[in-house]
């Protein structure tokens, strides 16, 4: 009996040791990768391929190529509105309920003709409708119909100066800590024919959860680039001085500025 219990305890000990070694090994690996990820040099090495991605993919794409456009029957039944909650301030709610009378889109920065546009002004401009696929960085896709002003129409009106390289979108929505959402795209994407400032979704005024009254559609990139609740567009030479300097709300939190992949 003594011998038997010894055998069992030995087996238990061995199994326990194996299990312990396994857990130690795995959590050790986990810690190594976590530490590597928090190491500034390692992280900037990993981040260095973002420029390669942008150059390679833009090179392969060429210009004048359009994202696939779908038909009405492909439109998603469910279109998840990700991101920050809508900016429910008194002014926003009042405006939303009365058709945005006091909302205006301001466009400025390095431009020859700064401008202000009411929603009716924008609706009076040339419009584009497109049924496109929205790809979230999380991995899901949804198809929606969007109508709005091609950004290039605004560009033609305000005439950015030659040194303007980016369009920065300042938004009304904030996160729980009060940080304002903002995003930026470069002039290549700003001039893409399917890059529009959308005020309609699925043949209805843009719903509040999808960024009313105005949101950006950039069909060459992931969803987080497509700013909602836009109130101001600024053309700049660099975004280094804006917020944390990485070109957008999600970029300041570690995501790629170039979200074409």
């Amino acid at each position: 009996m003594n011998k038997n219990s010894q055998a069992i305890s030995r087996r238990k000990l061995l199994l326990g040791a194996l299990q312990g070694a396994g857990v130690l090994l795995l959590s050790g690996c986990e810690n190594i990768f976590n530490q590597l990820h928090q190491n500034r040099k390692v992280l900037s090495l990993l981040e260095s391929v973002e420029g390669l991605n942008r150059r390679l993919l833009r090179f392969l794409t060429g210009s004048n190529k359009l994202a696939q456009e779908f038909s009405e029957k492909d439109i998603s039944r469910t279109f998840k509105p990700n991101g920050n909650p809508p900016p429910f301030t008194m002014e926003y709610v009042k405006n939303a309920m009365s058709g945005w009378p006091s909302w205006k889109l301001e466009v400025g920065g390095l431009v020859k003709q700064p401008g202000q546009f009411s929603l009716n002004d924008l609706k009076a401009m040339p419009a584009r409708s497109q049924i496109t696929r929205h790809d979230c960085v999380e991995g899901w896709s949804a198809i929606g119909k969007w109508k709005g002003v091609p950004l290039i129409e605004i560009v033609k009106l305000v005439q950015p100066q030659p040194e303007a390289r980016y369009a920065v979108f300042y938004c009304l929505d904030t996160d729980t800590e009060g940080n304002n959402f903002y995003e930026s795209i470069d002039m290549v994407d700003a001039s893409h024919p399917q890059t529009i400032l959308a005020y309609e979704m699925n043949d209805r005024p843009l719903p509040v959860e999808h960024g009313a009254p105005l949101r950006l559609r950039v069909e060459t990139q992931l969803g987080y680039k497509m700013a909602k609740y836009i109130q101001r567009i600024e053309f700049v030479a660099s975004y280094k001085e804006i917020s944390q300097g990485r070109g957008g709300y999600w970029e300041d939190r570690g995501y790629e500025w170039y979200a074409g992949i």
Partner: protein
Amino acid sequence: MANLAYRHNRITRLTHWVNALALLILFMSGLQIFNAYPHLHWGSKAEPEEAFFSIYAADEDGDIRGYARFFGWRVDTTGILGVQQTDMGPFPRAFPSWITIPGFFWLAGGRRWHFFFAWLFALNGFLYFLYNLGRGHMRKFLFSPYDAGKILPMILYYLRLRSESPQEGEYNPLQKMAYTGVFFILTPLIILSGLAMSPQLDVAFNWLPAIFGGRQSARTVHFLLTFLFAFFTFGHIFMVITTGMINNMRCMVTGWYIEKGLKDSRDEGLTLNPETLEPTEVVSKPESEGLRNEQK
């Protein structure tokens, strides 16, 4: 009596280990990315109720359980998938922290690792491919219709139901099938299905997601191929261990394999250069590239 054979050239050995590291990190960072949306769909879009596979956590009267669901078939995966016990209690996450990179829940971080090592994987594979194609090495394991007939005898041999191996060249028919499949089917498909998820590339090439049946199908294919790679890797490691681990490992590090029944390569005028550990022909100058000796 050791019969030394020089089996793996420098480029093969280098790219093998770089590839091993890249695949491991691509696998683990890929699972991190999957965790951001642990559902699989078919087609272009992802209607939530149409996911055919999901990993999720469910609160059952305060007890958090993890589940994997495949169509109508649900399995309790608590302890492995869907929920992980942490110091702060159960935390819903599809794949547990120890198999993802980084270990903490961070999609942006997973993407950084994944894209960096995707470049490494692709460039490394390209180097291997160019070098070994140029040297005619890949012909040795290219699966041909002739090999198809030898698959069954080879399986029987492995199962000890047949005494003689049907192997003729350096690689047996099962190895040829595995390597040809991985090199010429799996690898191109996993790269293409990965690229098909890029909205930028889809703008240029509308056909790219379409060949998989849509972007969500491409994502599903990419995920499933990952596990074919994992399956291959496990098979590979199993064979390495069971067919003489020390010898196999040494061979993939130094290039030299101890082989029975083969003439010692030193008998053919080959010797080991002690500095480079590369074989050199005794008759030729010691500095000359010894790699071509392998072709004998």
